[in-house]
């Protein structure tokens, strides 16, 4: 309270001082450090006591943390050596090229997208200088506080002094001198990658020959990853410049749309690359998959081209309903799964056709979207049907951070549309939809996530009919999707309710159908309102993946908590690993919440 008062008062005084100057907006005079200290920390006796006490507490905590981290008893090599285990568990080494290719592709997309969306902002060099000064000072202070050996103290003091010196050098730079935040970021990455060429990070490998055992191999991670990482860095930088180059040449809105779609579907393709056999079962592909795909593409496009004619009327609705019925009926008979799924998707497209009906270009666009969805679906189904060549010891061929990311990604991509549908159903006019959706949401929200996870990993496989099986990972992912969809639905519903009655009436008054109103007017506004709570939910989901450890999936946390401390060399290194894992979670969640703040600002543009 007091702090706030005093600052607002100083601001007030400043405003009065400068309000006599006409024309230019008032410049807030910068306070000198001592003035700032006085105004914010020592404005009265009580605040001074608070300042002193909390500074002491903070120093004590830092000292405690540092003496934990730098205690010679700590086995940090347990974390460093097991980095590969932490990231991918037991993914076979000779298949690592697949992961590098995937990562390279993602970085390529990132680079191009950063250029297209003009990400990054200009940072003043003097600001950078101030930051460096602060960081350097912190390192110096921390070094003096930490119980280092004298040699380590000297090294860290030199590092700190170097950073401080750099800061002092940059600080007086003119305020016109700026640097892109992207340059700073890539500079930091470059330093990290260069360290691979200098510092011999080691790793653990599993030797299955002779008597199986795990061996620590110093220097291997640095040796095997320094070249790929350098290439990755070059890919990212080059693709940024490539993006900046072609941005000027082609229609921007259209290529942004293409990029967004690529982002959405590329993980599915990459997953295939990482997990599955790159060699297709060509016989099956040509005899079954491609003919079915062609049939649905052609028949579906013809049908949709007809259904999107403005003058179809009632006949169209009857036919769409009939297809939906056939789609459900296919589940009663022996049939390829691909046919069932495609029929249902076709029914969905047919039902939505009147919403998007129009003149020729609009109809052709709708048919194209249909064919595009066919391609993606067929690829996915083929990918899932193809067995994996990445054979590894243990239950599942990938684990660690990779599985955490994978489950998180699939949960987000699938829970989001499901959540929107649930929210729409819950606010719909049809009582049956409302009832189903409300029951579902309330039921899921009333049960702890861990219960749902255990149910899906243990019980559901028992209930499945013969011939159908679900890997534990898939079952658990479904559990996550269902759980998150219920929560996201509530966020979206909040957004839907915030759309005023006037908006509904205006849309109705210009003759929009219910689905047009929902799609063009209500949902865009609702989702915008729902972004902040949804991001909160997404961050929570990411942290909740830690529960996988409890049901015994080899996720990031499980490996850190149980697997590494079980290695003979690293008995009792649990705390180090847990600290590392917390740090990774912290960094990622922090980045997500920062990113969401920027997204919020961007989407708020048109409103006022």
């Amino acid at each position: 309270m007091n702090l706030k008062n005093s600052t607002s008062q100083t601001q007030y005084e400043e405003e009065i001082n400068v309000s006599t100057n006409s024309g230019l907006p008032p410049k807030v005079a910068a306070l000198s450090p001592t003035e700032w200290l006085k105004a914010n920390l020592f404005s009265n006796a009580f605040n001074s006591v608070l300042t002193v006490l909390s500074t002491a507490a903070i120093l004590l905590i830092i000292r405690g943390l540092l003496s934990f981290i730098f205690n010679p008893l700590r086995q940090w090599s347990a974390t460093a050596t097991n980095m590969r285990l932490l990231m991918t568990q037991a993914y076979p080494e000779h298949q690592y090229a697949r992961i590098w290719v995937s990562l390279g592709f993602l970085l390529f997309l990132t680079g191009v997208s950063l250029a297209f969306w003009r990400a990054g902002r200009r940072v003043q060099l003097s600001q950078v200088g101030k930051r460096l000064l602060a960081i350097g000072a912190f390192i110096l202070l921390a070094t003096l506080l930490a119980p280092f050996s004298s040699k380590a103290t000297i090294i860290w003091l030199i590092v700190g002094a170097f950073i401080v010196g750099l800061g002092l050098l940059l600080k007086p730079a003119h305020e016109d001198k700026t640097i892109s935040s992207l340059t700073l970021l890539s500079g930091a990455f470059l330093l990290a990658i260069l360290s691979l060429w200098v510092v011999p990070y080691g790793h653990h490998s599993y030797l299955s020959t002779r008597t199986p055992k795990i061996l620590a191999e110093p220097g291997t991670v640095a040796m095997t990853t320094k070249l790929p990482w350098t290439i990755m860095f070059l890919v990212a930088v080059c693709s940024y410049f490539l993006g900046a180059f072609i941005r000027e040449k082609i229609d921007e809105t259209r290529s942004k749309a293409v990029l967004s779609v690529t982002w959405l579907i590329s993980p599915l393709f990459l997953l295939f690359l990482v997990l599955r056999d790159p060699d297709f079962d060509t016989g099956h592909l040509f005899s079954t998959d491609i003919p079915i795909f062609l049939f649905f593409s052609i028949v579906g496009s013809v049908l949709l081209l007809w259904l999107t004619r403005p003058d179809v009327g009632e006949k169209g609705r009857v036919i769409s309903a009939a297809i939906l019925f056939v789609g459900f009926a296919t589940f009663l008979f022996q049939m390829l799964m691909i046919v069932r799924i495609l029929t249902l998707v076709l029914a969905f497209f047919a039902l939505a056709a009147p919403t998007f009906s129009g003149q020729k270009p609009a109809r052709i666009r709708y048919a194209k979207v249909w064919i595009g969805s066919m391609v993606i679906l067929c690829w996915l189904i083929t990918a899932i049907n193809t067995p994996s060549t990445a054979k590894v010891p243990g239950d599942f061929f990938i684990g660690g951070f990779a599985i955490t990311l994978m489950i998180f990604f699939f949960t987000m991509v699938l829970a989001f549309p499901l959540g929107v549908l649930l929210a729409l159903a819950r606010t719909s006019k049809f009582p049956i939809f409302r009832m189903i959706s409300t029951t579902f949401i309330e039921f899921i929200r009333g049960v702890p996530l861990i219960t749902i996870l255990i149910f899906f990993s243990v019980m559901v496989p028992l209930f499945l009919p013969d011939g159908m099986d679900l890997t534990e990972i898939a079952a658990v992912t479904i559990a996550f999707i269902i759980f998150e969809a219920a929560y996201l639905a509530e966020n979206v519903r909040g957004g839907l309710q915030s759309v005023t009655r006037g908006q509904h009436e205006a849309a109705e008054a210009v003759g929009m159908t219910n689905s047009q109103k929902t799609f063009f007017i209500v949902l865009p506004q609702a989702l915008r309102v729902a972004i902040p709570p949804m991001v909160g939910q997404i961050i929570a989901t990411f942290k909740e993946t830690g529960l996988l450890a409890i049901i015994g999936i080899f996720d990031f946390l499980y490996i850190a908590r149980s697997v590494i401390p079980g290695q003979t060399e690293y008995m009792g290194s649990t705390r180090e690993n847990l600290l590392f894992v917390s740090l990774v979670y912290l960094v990622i969640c922090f980045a997500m919440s920062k990113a969401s703040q920027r997204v919020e600002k961007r989407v708020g543009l048109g409103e006022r």
Partner: protein
Amino acid sequence: MTENETKSSIRGDRDLANAQDIIVCEGVSKWFGDFQALNNVTATIKEQEVVVVLGPSGSGKSTWIRCINRLEQHQEGRIMVDGVELSNDLRNIEKVRSEVGMVFQMFNLFPHLTVRDNISLAPIWVRKKPRAEAEEQASSLLERVGIPEQADKFPGQLSGGQQQRVAIARALAMEPKIMLFDEPTSALDPEMIKEVLDVMKELALSGMTMMVVTHEMGFAKEVADKIMFMEGGQIVETGTPEHFFTNPTEERTKLFLSQIL
């Protein structure tokens, strides 16, 4: 003088005596719970006619006008709009709505779309016009309401008067036969009222059938062909502006006029 001239020129090029009936209400009643908001409303509006609905607050003006494009449902009686009877049949409602434009007191523009998209959205998806044509139409409508330079802004960046003119353009983009206005100037600052009224006058001049709820007596005197006075959910008196403002017959009308004039 000038006032009389405008009036005669508005009347001059129309032949209201022989015009077709376009809105017919017969014995329309509506209840909100136990409260009767409309009580046996019977009225006929002819093509190209400009009707101003007056009445004290809570008299049911909005309720009536909203029944005509089915934003509210009447419970008794019949409403026919351009030969189509309003009932629960969805197709009739969609048909009527695409022929009846409505302008709201609070504008109700779509805040997430630019002005151009606000106007062209419905023509593209409801009228099934090609996008290029719809956008061209949006530009010419903006020209008509006097703000061609605002096409790429968002509604939140416009003044109230500009927003209401965009709302009028949005309704006109559907090429309606009838325009309904529910207190279009009540949420505006005095200096913006005129710009909106001018657009409405021009619209009346061009022969649009209009039904206007307003408290702008100047507009009623100058532009209306017919004034309907409502109270307690009933139409108490109907007549030409001359009749209405100079020698109303009903006691309640006189009381109302004495309060506001």
